[in-house]
C-alpha cells in the first residue's frame, strides 16, 4: 500500500462526493417534481460511490505505518485522531480533511447556477466517468475493479440523463439554446483537467491499478462532440484550461462547500451521530 494509491482512491472518491453534494443542492428546488426526484437519485448514486471509496481509502490509510500516516493529512483534527492511535473512517475522510487534501477536479465543485450549467457539468463529468470506470474495471486492485463495475451501471444512466438534457435544452427554445451554449462554453475551461495525467495518475497507471487518461482523451472528446452536435451547440473554443484540483489547488467554491459540509463534525468533534 502506498500513499500514492491512497491519493488515487481519494481523487475518485472526492469527485463523487463533491459532485453528489452539488446535485443534492437541487433537492426541493428542481424545475419539476419528476426531475427533482431523478436528479436526487443521481446524487444518491454519487454519494454511495463516495462512501464505498472512502471506506476503502480509510482501510488503506489505517494500514500505513504511523510515521507515514502523520505526513499524509495536515488538518489538526485528523492529526489528533492519528496521535490518539485510533483508526479513521469514511466520515473522518470526508469531514476532517482540509481543502488542500481534497483531490477532486475543479469541474465538479462549480456552482449549479441553473439547469443548463448543471446539465453541462454533468455531461462533461459523466462522460469522463463512464470511460474512466470502464477502464477501472480492469484494475489489478480487486476492490477498485469491483466498485468500478457496480458504479458503471449507475454512471451509464447518469450519462444518458445529462446527454438528453443538453440536447433538449440546446435544441429546445431560443432561450434554452442560448443558456445551454453559455453553460457549455463557460465550463469548458474545467474539462482539460479531466484527462490530464498528474503524478498520481501516472504512477497508478504504471502499477496496473489506474486508468490511462491519455487514451480517454479522444473517446471523451468524440462523445462530447456528438452530443453538442445533436444539441445544435457550437463546440467551445479550445483555450486555456484550469488545472490544480487533482493536486489540491481548488477554486474558491470548495472552501464554501467544505465549510458547510464539515461544519457539524468540526464544531462537535468526537461524537456519534
Amino acid at each position: 500500500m502506498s500513499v500514492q494509491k491512497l491519493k488515487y482512491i481519494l481523487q475518485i472518491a472526492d469527485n463523487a462526493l463533491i459532485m453528489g453534494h452539488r446535485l443534492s443542492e437541487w433537492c426541493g428546488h428542481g424545475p419539476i417534481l419528476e426531475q427533482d426526484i431523478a436528479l436526487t437519485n443521481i446524487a444518491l448514486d454519487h454519494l454511495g460511490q463516495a462512501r464505498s471509496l472512502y471506506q476503502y481509502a480509510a482501510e488503506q490509510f489505517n494500514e500505513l505505518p504511523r510515521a507515514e500516516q502523520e505526513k499524509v493529512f495536515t488538518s489538526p483534527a485528523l492529526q489528533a485522531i492519528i496521535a490518539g492511535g485510533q483508526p479513521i473512517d469514511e466520515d473522518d475522510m470526508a469531514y476532517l480533511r482540509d481543502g488542500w487534501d481534497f483531490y477532486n477536479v475543479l469541474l465538479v465543485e462549480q456552482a449549479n447556477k441553473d439547469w443548463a450549467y448543471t446539465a453541462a457539468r454533468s455531461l462533461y463529468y459523466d462522460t469522463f466517468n463512464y470511460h474512466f470506470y470502464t477502464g477501472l474495471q480492469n484494475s489489478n486492485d480487486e476492490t477498485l475493479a469491483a466498485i468500478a463495475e457496480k458504479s458503471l451501471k449507475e454512471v451509464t444512466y447518469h450519462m444518458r440523463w445529462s446527454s438528453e438534457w443538453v440536447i433538449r435544452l440546446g435544441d429546445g427554445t431560443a432561450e434554452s439554446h442560448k443558456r445551454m451554449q453559455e453553460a457549455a462554453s463557460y465550463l469548458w475551461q474545467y474539462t482539460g483537467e479531466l484527462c490530464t495525467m498528474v503524478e498520481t495518475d501516472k504512477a497508478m497507471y504504471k502499477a496496473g491499478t489506474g486508468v490511462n487518461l491519455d487514451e480517454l482523451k479522444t473517446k471523451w472528446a468524440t462523445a462530447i462532440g456528438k452530443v453538442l452536435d445533436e444539441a445544435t451547440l457550437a463546440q467551445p473554443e479550445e483555450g486555456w484550461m484550469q488545472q490544480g484540483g487533482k493536486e489540491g489547488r481548488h477554486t474558491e467554491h470548495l472552501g464554501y462547500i467544505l465549510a458547510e459540509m464539515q461544519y457539524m463534525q468540526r464544531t462537535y468533534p468526537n461524537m456519534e451521530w
Partner: protein
Amino acid sequence: MSQQETEHKSEWPLWEVFIRSKAGLDHKHVGSLHAADAQMAIENARDVYTRRMEGVSIWVVESKYLHTSDPDESASMYEPANDKIYRHPTFYNLPDELKHM
C-alpha cells in the same frame, strides 16, 4: 383542448405507468407522472416508481389515449429498490421496548 392546456402551454403531458416487476407477471398500473415525451416518461417512471430497481419492464402511455371501462382496480404494490436498504424500516437500530413505529 381544455382551458388549462391553453393557459399552460408548457405543461408536460400526463402519462400512465405500468410496471412488470418480475418476468412472468403482468404489467400493473402503478400511477402516473408528467413528462415531455415517451422516453422521458420511461426514465421518470424508473426514477419515481422503482427508484431504479433493475430488471423491471415499464410501459407508459399518454393518459389521453387511455380508454376506461371498469374502474375497479386493486391497490398497487410497491417494492423499494433493493440496494437502497436505508429505505427499509428494518435498517434502523431501535430499542425493543419501542412500540408503534
